[in-house]
């Protein structure tokens, strides 16, 4: 399999902006709404190219969700853009009633998710959004790993029918997947083949897992790395196939330990194939100000933390 490396760092939100622009060109039903964060969400190009299909909502996220629901009536495909905190927690009931329960084809696109938002601190660093969104019946939840995958996921959402949540982030991050790497919603992406342990990772943490895998290989531990970019619907088949081979797993996410990817994988394993599992996630705490790298280290989301979790789970493994 390919060794993953990178030559440049790019923010995943720019992948969203690029994908949205491409969608705007290929599908005239795509409309975009933004709550006073056009620059932060990288929606300027879409706005410039398609001013009639861009709706500046101002600092009024509840209204934005309702507008988006209404815009589906008449055949439009609305993409809403704001920070992840204001895309979920602030407007949960609007999403629940007007979008999810009403089965509206709205794409909720959320930037600045997780600790890697950095210096703005815990008010903005939402770590509960995956849990909130995956609990909504019928909601698709996607967390791409880098610029290229975020662009591909955005484009894929243009053809997807139904409510969806797309989570991405602020910082420059290694671009390690190829621009033409296939992206299929709901289909896990095996990045590295291995046999001793499976690392399931999502979002920015996929890169942390790949770095951990390289160091583990030096210790002759063969880790399989699987990118779970779609938290819901979860690729149960891929999860089981891998763990049936490796007999143990670690999950990695920039999210609370409660409610995220780890919970979803634990549920699958407990029901269908009980096996030792360790969770790399934020341990029931709020974040704080700092640089992304400092925060990932302090809150236990660095590659070393993934390695520690692998060591721990290997000790629990029944051979």
């Amino acid at each position: 399999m390919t060794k993953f490396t990178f030559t440049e760092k790019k923010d995943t939100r720019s992948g969203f902006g690029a994908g949205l622009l491409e969608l705007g060109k290929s599908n005239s039903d795509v409309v975009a709404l933004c709550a006073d964060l056009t620059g932060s969400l990288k929606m300027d190009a879409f706005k410039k190219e398609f001013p009639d299909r861009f709706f500046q909502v101002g600092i009024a996220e509840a209204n934005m969700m309702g507008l988006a629901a209404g815009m589906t009536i008449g055949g439009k495909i609305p993409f809403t853009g704001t920070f992840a905190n204001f895309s979920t927690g602030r407007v949960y009931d609007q999403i629940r009633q007007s979008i999810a329960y009403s089965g509206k084809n709205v794409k909720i696109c959320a930037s600045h998710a997780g600790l890697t938002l950095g210096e703005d601190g815990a008010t903005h660093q939402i770590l509960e959004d995956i849990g909130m969104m995956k609990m909504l019946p019928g909601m698709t939840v996607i967390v791409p790993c880098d610029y290229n995958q975020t662009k591909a996921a955005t484009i894929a959402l243009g053809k997807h029918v139904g409510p969806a949540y797309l989570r991405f982030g602020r910082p420059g991050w290694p671009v390690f997947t190829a621009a033409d790497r296939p992206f299929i919603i709901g289909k896990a992406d095996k990045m590295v083949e291995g046999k001793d342990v499976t690392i399931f990772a999502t979002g920015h943490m996929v890169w942390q897992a790949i770095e951990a895998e390289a160091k583990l290989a030096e210790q002759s531990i063969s880790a399989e790395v699987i990118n779970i970019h779609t938290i819901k619907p979860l690729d149960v088949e891929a999860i089981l196939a891998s763990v049936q081979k490796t007999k143990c797993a670690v999950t990695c996410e920039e999210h609370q330990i409660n409610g995220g990817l780890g919970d979803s994988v634990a549920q699958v394993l407990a029901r269908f194939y009980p096996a030792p599992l360790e969770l790399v996630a934020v341990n029931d705490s709020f974040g704080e100000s700092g640089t992304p790298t400092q925060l990932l280290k302090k809150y236990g989301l660095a590659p070393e933390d993934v390695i520690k979790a692998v060591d721990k789970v290997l000790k629990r493994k029944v051979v």
Partner: protein
Amino acid sequence: MQRFRKFKNYFIHKYKNQYLRAKPFYMSQPDIPQLNKLATQIRRDIVRMVHACQSGHPGGSLGCTDFFVALYFHHLQHNPKFNMDAKGEDLFFLSNGHISPVWYATLARAGYFEVNELATFRFLNTRLQGHPATHEHLPGVRVASGSLGQGLSVAIGAAQVKKLNQDNHLVYVLMGDGEQQEGQIWEAAMYAAHNKVDNLIATIDYNGQQIDGPVEKIVSLQNLKAKWESFGWTVLEFNGNAMDEVINGISLAKSLAHKGKPVLNLMKTEMGFGVDYMMGSHKWHGVAPNDEELAKALAQLPETVGDY
């Protein structure tokens, strides 16, 4: 229990494979006596519906009946052969979803589904959920509502898409007055005026009551007309419990559409209108009548076009 069995059979035999529709009924010229007859029948439907399931919201439903009749049987250009996207049709959204009985009865009487289905209101497996929903695919409903404050935003979104699609039809939305306490209403009000969403006619059911008591005592709306005007809307006022005034009020609102500003109707109604013991009190906001109270209500609302 017997009643439950009756409904179970009803679903199996009547609704499993077929949906008989009532004949659509409109008026190009308003026939006030005929519209009043329909309103009386729909008020009858409402009290029977909430009585049958011993739950639901009769007060606001009865207060808004004349508005629904005027809208669906005269003003609204709509097609009871329901289509979600409704291109080339007017749209109506109910934001204060708890007055679902009046909407369901109106939709059935307008031909969206068979009137007998009203008997299933709030029973298990019904399409007529306690609060309106799209989940069970009830014709006529385009978004779920009930959690208050959301319908105006949805209506504005739909109105903006009408403009994008170069469709000159109008979008209507009804809200409650207690609902004006929700912050999202004011986000939406500000947005609609700023963006000149002038193909939108919003109406507030101004009955002065909410669950815990008179709106003025719970959290006063102060000068509601001035509030909406200062937000950049054209505001009209009319009595919502006199058919000719409702017909004329909506006519005036329509004549002011497409003139650069969204239009708001402050529609004064009386909660429970048509049933004397329910009138003028918040007590009947969300309480169903018992057998005796039902009989008393029905005596005041004679059957006009036929019970379901």
